């Protein structure tokens, strides 16, 4: 890695002065601020490119040059990084990036049909933007929400359990400027605003939305109903995590839609003996024995 700070770029910006002029002074200052978060400045490159996208709407030659200048590396090196990662875009992205998961599980559960429907409805291909500049459509790989398949992401917020119809409704709402809330998150912001959060500049929306959706709580809810819990901990509390009086907690705040199934059963859970239902206890099976007997 060379350490020179100025070099010709593919776009002809050849001096530091020119590079700094390419992005607003404020942005340059923030890019430097990001680099300074790390023991070695270059570690800041990924978040810096997110910031470039939030300002420029994509990774522009000026943004590449700015990062290169600040980190003291070549524009080619920055470019090499930018092209490696799928979230960095060379072409302008619309206000809303709509991603349809078409990895195997979502695809089978309906993701392929959702993508086809949206392509037709929006009249765009993969990784293309509608004429009004509002929506960029892209198919995604698994987004770690398979228990909510089929999954659609809008500006990297979750839209769970989608169908072709609900997906069409979603993009129509986005285009008409209606308020659109993520299933497990806040009202969706623009793609550029989202990129700014990814660069490490919080937008104050962390408290919006629920803690969890229904699938996230599926096992917990069954455990509550059955009175199942982890063994008592060293400090003698009934719960491993030391909770004692959850039955008395205040009701769920409005807006936390999926969070509302909080168990009325909790008080019951607290009172139930710790050792219910042990017949199907899997713990003491010999480890190498694959075929154990009937479990339930």
């Amino acid at each position: 890695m060379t350490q020179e700070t100025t070099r010709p770029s593919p776009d002809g910006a050849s001096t530091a002065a020119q590079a700094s002029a390419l992005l607003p002074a404020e942005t340059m200052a923030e890019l430097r601020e990001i680099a300074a978060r790390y023991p070695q400045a270059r570690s800041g490159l990924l978040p810096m490119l997110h910031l470039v996208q939030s300002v420029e709407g994509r990774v522009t030659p000026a943004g590449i040059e700015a990062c290169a200048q600040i980190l003291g590396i070549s524009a080619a090196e920055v470019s090499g990084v930018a092209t490696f990662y799928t979230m960095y875009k060379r072409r302008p992205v619309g206000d809303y990036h709509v991603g349809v998961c078409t990895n195997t599980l979502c695809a089978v559960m309906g993701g392929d049909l959702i993508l086809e429907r949206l392509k037709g409805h929006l009249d765009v291909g993969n990784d293309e933007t509608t004429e009004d500049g509002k929506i960029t459509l892209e198919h995604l790989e698994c987004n770690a929400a398979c228990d909510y398949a089929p999954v659609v992401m809008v500006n990297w917020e979750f839209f769970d359990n989608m169908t072709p119809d609900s997906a069409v409704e979603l993009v129509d709402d986005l285009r008409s400027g209606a308020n659109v809330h993520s299933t497990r998150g806040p009202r969706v912001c623009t793609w550029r605003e989202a990129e700014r959060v990814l660069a490490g500049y919080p937008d104050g929306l962390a408290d919006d939305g629920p803690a969890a959706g229904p699938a996230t709580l599926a096992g917990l809810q069954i455990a509550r109903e059955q009175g199942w819990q982890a063994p008592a901990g060293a400090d003698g509390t009934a719960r491993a995590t030391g909770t004692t009086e959850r039955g008395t907690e205040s009701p769920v705040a409005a807006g936390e839609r999926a969070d509302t199934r909080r168990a009325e059963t909790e008080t019951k859970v607290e009172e139930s003996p710790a050792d219910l239902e042990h017949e199907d206890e899997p713990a003491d099976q010999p480890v190498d024995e694959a075929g154990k007997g009937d479990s339930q």
Partner: protein
Amino acid sequence: MSDVLTPVLSDNWDMPRAWTLESYESTGGYEGLKKALGQTPESVIELVKDSGLRGRGGAGFPTGMKWGFIPQDNPKPKYLVVNADESEPGTCKDIPLMMASPHTLVEGVAISSYAIRANTAFIYVRGEVLHVIRRLQRAVQEAYLAGHLGKDIHGSGYDLDVVVHAGAGAYICGEETALLDSLEGRRGQPRLRPPFPAVAGLYAAPTVINNVESIASVPCIVRNGAGWFSSMGTEKSKGMTLYSLSGHVKRPGQYEAPLGITLRQLLDLSGGMREGAELKFWTPGGSSTPILTAEHLDVPLDYEGVSGAGSMLGTKALQVFDQTTSVVRCVLRWTEFYKHESCGKCTPCREGTWWLVQVLQRLERGAGQEGDIEVLLDMCDNILGRAFCALGDGATSPITSAVQYFREEFEAGMHTPASELFPYQASTVFGAEVSA
């Protein structure tokens, strides 16, 4: 003896505003950190070793032992890096954990960093999960304000800085050495080992890389003891863990149970397969773990049990498919994924995945050629063990296991399109006519 489900990590997820510091502390959050700071770092490592905790990121390496590899006589700074890149197809446990209770992870980061004497820790989270990143950023900020992070934590003289770092979309960055390159601001490509990250990791300094769930499991161990943790699970697979059930089941979701529960038990608990459906095949731990079938319903889902059945526990991502599903279609889609995500560094994986896709595409179209199955197996043989990192090996898993259990579907691919044998509409969750 423990109950069938043992919510520990998930125990506070149904609390109002579970993600806030206030909520987390109301259930004893950060007590583990205070307890740890009252002990020597070595004794925290011993505790985690004694608990039997094994890495939850896929390989199951003992966590305490990994920490013990950090050479404390090395004068360089030590680093903890949390692998929050969760991108293995089917895997969906770390993301909901960080969404619901980011402080569990942050407390784990503080304790684990203390144990290995790191003063800087990174949480490398995949970029495609905006709200999870917001919650992490906020949790770290709250923890600083409360004195759980920063300078002289709770008067112990111990300093720790934590940086939340968003990735930018690349499955390979979940591989630990590729993650380090990515965190250094480079293309995410795996490094040659040795040297191992414990000796020369981030900035060539001693580094521990652990999965989110591994690190999040540390606070409860510190609070409740190694014996408490190891009272759950099986002989060599200790503790409770998150199983992620997805696909053609009545109630997909997260199920926290002692290691060793079976898929049959999980399906029984969750209401079974969707209406009228029969189990056809499933992955025990994401797409890189060989598929299993209904004959494996009673395999204990611990590290030894699943390897005994010829697969791997992996990330405990149980993707369940019913009889409407075309195996060839699924295998093609997974292979397209590996081809797309191959970092291109080594030839067997870069070229091999490309060719595998070509052959699988024609089999899916019903235009397979004589000998295609042998070609597939031969190519897998040439990738497995010859690729530079485990992505290449993982790419062969769905293919070889699917041919093993469903060879006739590949043979049918010589003349009949998969979509004719298994109309794709029937596999969807909407408007599906499921006929047994």
